């Protein structure tokens, strides 16, 4: 195993762990035939609940420019499509960082 660096083994192990998460939920859930309404509600909440954790701390702990940008971007996002929201938000954060 001389040819592979430690990094490569770490990457392959992490890849296996990641694939396990991607099939794991289905393997567990497919054992049940009918879902309880609470389980159903929990599954429907997954995208909003998880994706929120990937931006909420970044909006709060990065600084005033970032917090302001996120607040404005949420308002913009209620009106405009996703890609426009992302690019306008990026422009706002660049401008605010230059100003503040």
């Amino acid at each position: 195993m001389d040819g592979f660096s430690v990094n490569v083994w770490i990457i392959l192990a992490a890849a296996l762990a990641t694939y396990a998460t991607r099939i794991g939920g289905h393997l567990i859930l497919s054992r049940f035939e009918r879902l309880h309404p609470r389980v159903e509600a929990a599954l429907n909440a997954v995208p909003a609940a998880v994706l929120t954790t990937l931006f909420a701390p970044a909006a709060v702990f990065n600084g005033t420019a970032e917090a302001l940008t996120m607040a404005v971007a949420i308002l913009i996002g209620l009106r405009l499509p996703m890609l426009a929201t992302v690019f306008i938000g990026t422009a706002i954060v660049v401008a605010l960082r230059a100003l503040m």
Partner: protein
Amino acid sequence: MTVSFKRDFLAGMRQCVPVVVAAAPFGLLFGALAVDNGLTVGEAVLMSATIYAGASQMVGIDLFNGSAAPWLIVLSIFAVNFRHVLYSAAVGRRISHFSLWQKAVAFFLLIDPVYAETERRSEAGKSMTFAWYLGIGLPVYLSWVAEGYLGAVFGGLIENPEEFGIDFLLPLYFMALVLGFRSRKNWLPVVLASALGSIAGFHFIGSPWHVSIGAIIGIAVAAIIADTRPPQNMKASVGSEASR
């Protein structure tokens, strides 16, 4: 290749365009940061090709730079990707008609935006075919790996990512994805609970645990406030049966 396969594949490909465009900066940035943190170009590409989960790859390279133990790096990547357990549980219901190897491929390609688009399409009542799934999933995957390579090779050209707001693209992108689900039942309480949970988790315990903590709190709130009463027509039939 049948006509319907081609049609569905192309329909998926049309939907992959915004995902590819939105992910491109992160794919390039990952490659650049990976090399910056001491990985080789080959290792950066291997990471994009096998792990294929942007946020966790970023967390991983962050740890490669320090003296973190190998098991800790693997565990951190696992923690960031733990949400995929939930995606796979949710998407499994949508693709139960896929064959075994189609499922194996579909779950490998199951990243945040592919998950979101799959849910959206199913919710709209459109057919969920393997061709459509490949159409959206494969171009995103291939461009992600290519971007990792390009970023690793040409990464030295981006000297100051903050200056272009590149570091804030990812949070904005996730926020916009969340807004896309706002018509779902109890969306606001779930988002608020998840936001507070992740902010507290980030503050008191630290990254990457805030992801699992916030998600679990948001999902728990959804389960607790869920309407568990049976549908009206069922109630009526039960009532008429009792009166007989």
